[in-house]
Structure formats: structure tokens, C-alpha cells
């Protein structure tokens, strides 16, 4: 019921075979382009990483898809439809720092918020919603923390709560903004396994990712971004030194010279 089709949106499907289709997208803040003429296609059923240096516009790209920031130009299609009409097929995991974790609420409560869109106005979350939220908490290994106040969770646990909230949305396209930033290694492994499980069940997962070292291991699709799209496609084809150099410029030396060191680039 939150779903409000807009009059100005065309009714016909466009590129329905793609999970995400972005065309001619430009976003600017105060006349400075943050994203410039982005053309992007993500096929369904892949797990895609969006990588790029600081200020490349990775988060902005996701926010523009979700209509959280105004587009200067261009349009977005999700499974062929405008986002406003495909809203229920999309789940979003914002950066953990985007909310006040001292808010008086429990982990279970936060996860149940993922069902609010399906519940619609006036309906309270009931036993069924509760069960769904508990199941999702179980999937992220947080069932024991359901009644814990969210300020008492560690960063990694908070991130997993956000992930569970996206899981209960039962979406087809998952957009995650740096879900592995600042979490411990155990949590990172759990998150990756979970996202790969979603992909294996045919869902599409798009992740803003900051650690170039792990891209090959975690993902099968990749978008390299630096205001413009530098390269996109299967990781095996796109993850090349040449492409990374074009995106990261001087910072690439770090990656080439010290493959074992944590990536110095793109920690935001």
C-alpha cells in the first residue's frame, strides 16, 4: 500500500531481462558531477561488486537507483520497470552509520521493520511477521540476540541485523552499501556466505565493496566506478590491473606491490 505509481512514469517495460538497467545517469551536488553519464546493466542472478576509489560515487549510485538522491539526468529500470513500481522487489541495506543505534528498540524490532512495506498502512506486525523476523535473525546467526537492545550489539552484529531486515523484505534485487565495512572477519565470512546463498537461489545482489583483495573470491560480476563507469562485466574479465589502474590512478601501486596488504583504497 506504500506503493504509489507515478503518473509521469511510462507504463511499458524496458530491458525486462536485466535486474538493473541504468541509462545516461548523471547526479550532481551543487553543480559538481558525482556520477557522470552512467550506463549500467546487471543481469539477474549475479553477485556484483561496485568498487572504486573514495568519492567515486558508489553509494550515490545506489541511492540514485533508490531515488534517495535526485537525478540530474538519466533513468533506471529494475526488472524492466521504473523503481517506483518495482519497489517491493528491491531491498536496501544502508551504511550502518546512517542511523542512531542508541534508539530504544530491539534487534527483532528492527528486523520487523523490513516487513512494514508489505504490511501497508495501519496494520500492526503480528505473529507471522515476528516469525519471519526470527527466521531471518536465525539466518544471520543472531537469533539469540533478538531481544537485545540495539546499542548493546557490536558493529558486526548491528550489520547483521540490517542484513536480516533486508532478508525479510523477500526481494529479488538486494542493494547493499558497504555491508562489510568495519566488521570482524567472522561476520564478513557470514555475510558473504549469506549473499552467495541469495544469488544461488536466483536473487541478484549488488554490493558496494571496498576491499579489492577479496573481489575475485566473493563476486562473479563487477562494476569499476570512478564518477564514470570504467568497466563492467564478469569479474574474470573486468578485474584487470589495467582497469583498476584507470579507476584508482596512483593508488594502484599499493595493490600491485602488496597483494597481501589490506587495500588502502576506498575505505569509505
Amino acid at each position, binding site marked *: 500500500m*506504500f*506503493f*504509489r505509481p507515478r503518473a509521469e512514469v511510462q507504463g511499458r517495460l524496458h530491458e525486462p531481462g536485466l535486474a538493473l538497467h541504468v541509462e545516461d545517469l548523471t547526479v550532481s551536488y551543487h553543480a559538481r558531477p558525482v556520477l557522470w553519464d552512467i550506463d549500467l546493466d546487471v543481469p539477474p542472478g549475479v553477485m556484483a561488486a561496485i568498487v572504486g576509489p573514495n568519492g567515486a560515487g558508489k553509494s550515490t549510485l545506489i541511492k540514485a537507483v*533508490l*531515488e*534517495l538522491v535526485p537525478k540530474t539526468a538519466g533513468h533506471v529500470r529494475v526488472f524492466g520497470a521504473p523503481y*517506483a513500481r518495482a*519497489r517491493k522487489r*528491491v531491498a*536496501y541495506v*544502508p551504511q550502518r552509520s*546512517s*542511523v*542512531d543505534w542508541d*534508539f*530504544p*528498540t*530491539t534487534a527483532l*524490532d*528492527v528486523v520487523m*521493520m523490513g516487513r*512494514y*512495506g508489505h*504490511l501497508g*498502512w*495501519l496494520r*500492526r*506486525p503480528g505473529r507471522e511477521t515476528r516469525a519471519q523476523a526470527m527466521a531471518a535473525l536465525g539466518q544471520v546467526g543472531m537469533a539469540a540476540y533478538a531481544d537485545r*537492545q540495539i546499542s548493546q550489539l557490536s558493529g558486526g552484529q548491528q550489520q547483521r541485523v540490517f542484513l536480516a*531486515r533486508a532478508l525479510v523484505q523477500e526481494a529479488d534485487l538486494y542493494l547493499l552499501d558497504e555491508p562489510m565495512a568495519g566488521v570482524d572477519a567472522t561476520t564478513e565470512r557470514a555475510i558473504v556466505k549469506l549473499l552467495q546463498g541469495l544469488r544461488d537461489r536466483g536473487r541478484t545482489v549488488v554490493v558496494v565493496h571496498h576491499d579489492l583483495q577479496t573481489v575475485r573470491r566473493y563476486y562473479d560480476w563487477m562494476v569499476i566506478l570512478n564518477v564514470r563507469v570504467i568497466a563492467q562485466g564478469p569479474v574474470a574479465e573486468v578485474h584487470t590491473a589495467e582497469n583498476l589502474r584507470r579507476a584508482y590512478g596512483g593508488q594502484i601501486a599499493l595493490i600491485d606491490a602488496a597483494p597481501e596488504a589490506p587495500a588502502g583504497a576506498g575505505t569509505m
Partner: protein
Amino acid sequence: MGLVEILSDHTLQTVAIGAAILGAVSGVLGAFAVLRQQSLMGDALSHAALPGICLGFLWAGSRDLGAILGGALAAGALAALTVMAMTRLTRLKTDAALGSVLSFYFALGIVLLTLIQRQAGAGQAGLEAFLFGQAAAILREDLQVMGVLALASLGAVALLWKEFKLVTFDPVFARTLGLPVVALEAVLTVMVAVAVVIGLQMVGVVLMAAMIVAPAVAARQWVTRLGPMVVISAAIGMGAGVTGALISAMGRGLATGPLVVLAASAAVLVSILLAPGRGVIWDWMKRRAERRALGGQRVLTAIHALAAEHGDPEYPAEQSMLDVYFGGGTAAALDRLEARGAVRRAAHFRTEGVHWVLTPQGQAEAEDILAGGEGDRP
């Protein structure tokens, strides 16, 4: 006056009921305002009500309560919209926008007030009662107006509970679900203006902000969930209202409004100091316990290290030497360790002074600490 007489007094009943209504509404709406980090919004809205009061008076040509409260509500809503527009359209931060709006509207109100007083003759309009409130002037009919406004706003909160909760916790996520976030935030803000209007006669524009902020801040200390916070906040608001009304009725001619605010502030003080989990004293005691535990652990491992060095698990460590080693008194820490059976006093065959030996329990604890087990710390 005896208590029974006070309680059966007609005026007091009216004032107490009014104060309770005000406390409940401002407590509920204040909870959302405080959590949205808009505590100052109540301040801006109440100060902004003053020009509305004056314009309502001028429009009606008399001290007609409907016109005055209508004007106050309109001015408050206009001020809230001004703040929203300033933060959205300019680069001003919310605090700066609130500050400028608050002072602009209040100054405008004072100018109008002065004009009206000059026109009508000093004191005749009686509008200055709205500055600090005049609870005794509240009539039974006014309670009806207040009650209707209160029911309307509390009903809206009950109906839109989950929407308000989500918009308060995570507005960005709320937008991705398709919620009209701006509209919901506007409704929350306008309802704060309604609460202000309810409280104008009671506590006045200057102190009204406290009624929005204080119950919510106090309630936040005691709870871990939004539902209980809103309920406790309302209860504290009502309690403060009735307390203020009672103290005022007991004599000395003290004004009700400031007493209500003082009662709410007392609740804040108690909550900030005493609430388990968040209170200052609780926090202080927890930190002291942690510091002591850490001190005990250090002494325990030091004795353990000395014993290991001497190849004797029963090696008696001299207290004065431990003092030197830690650069201070270890007596208190050793006494606490002794009390729970981790160390015991021992005599040394050559030297004077107190010596300490690890008990088997103390040895196990020391080894546990050294193995990296940090006990029950998270």
C-alpha cells in the same frame, strides 16, 4: 487548606486535569521529537506561538480563546515549515535554523504584544499571561478544547505507530519502502505545535519547551523500547502536571506552570542520576567495579609471575614489594582478593611485613587471565 478540601476544590480539579492532559500529550509527542534529535523544535514552536496569540487577539478583537489558540497553532505550524524549508533549501544546519526562527518569531510576538497593550491599556488584554502561563484562568470549557486536541493527536500516534517509529529510527529506509517520509515528519512536527497550544495557558510560551523535552529525556533513561518510553514519558508528564497543580494549590500563591516544569525537571535529574543501565551513578559504579576487577587481576597475575619465577606455586609475595611494583597501594585490592578466597596471608621465615600466597582458586584464576580469558567481559 487540608488535602481533602484541596482535592475537592473546583478550580484545582480543572487545573490538575488540564495539567495532566498537557503532560500526557507533550510526553508522547516529546518522545518522538527527542528521538528525532529535534528537542529544540518545541522551543522554537512555543516561542513562535506568541505572534500567533497576538494576531488571534487582534483578529477576534477580544480575548477569545478559540481565535488565540488558532492563531498560536497557525504561527507554530508556519514556524515549523520555515525551519523545514531553511534546512532543506539552504545549507543551514537545523540548530541554526531553529535558533533564527525562534528569535525572529518571538521578537515579532513581543513587538505585537507591546502594541496591543498600548492600544488596549496596560494589562487589559491580559495577553502577557501567555508568556509564563496562568493556570488559574483555565475554565472547564477550555478542558474540552484541550481534551479534543489531545485525543486527536494521541489517536494519530496510535494509528500511525509503526510508521512514526520507522520514520524516527531510519527515515532513509522508510523512503525506500515508499513511505511519504516528509509528510509523516511534518505531521509529527505539527502535533508538537498542538501540544504547545494545549500548554500555552498552563505554562506559557517561555517554559513550554521543557514540557516537550523533559518527560521524554527522563523516560529514555529507563527503557530499551519505544513503546515503554512513550508510555513512561506520558506518565512523567502527567505526574509533573498534577504535582505542579497540587503544590500550587497548597498555598503561597506560586504559579502552576513553573512548578509543573520544576517537577518535570526533577524527574529528569533523578532519571539521569539513578536509572539502571544509563544513569550517571550506575555508570560510575559499573566503571568502579571494572577498575577494581582489573586492579585485582593485575595483582593476582603479578603474584603468579613471582611464584613462577621462584618455581614455587606457594611463594609468599611481600605486600610492600607489590606496592612498589604497582606504584601505589595494593592493600585494598589484596583485601578484596582475600575476601573471595583468591589469596591468603602467609608468614615469611626471614622478613617482616605482610606476605600473600595464591590459593588454588587464585592460581586457576591467574592462569585463566594469562591464557587470554577475560572473564565475563563482553
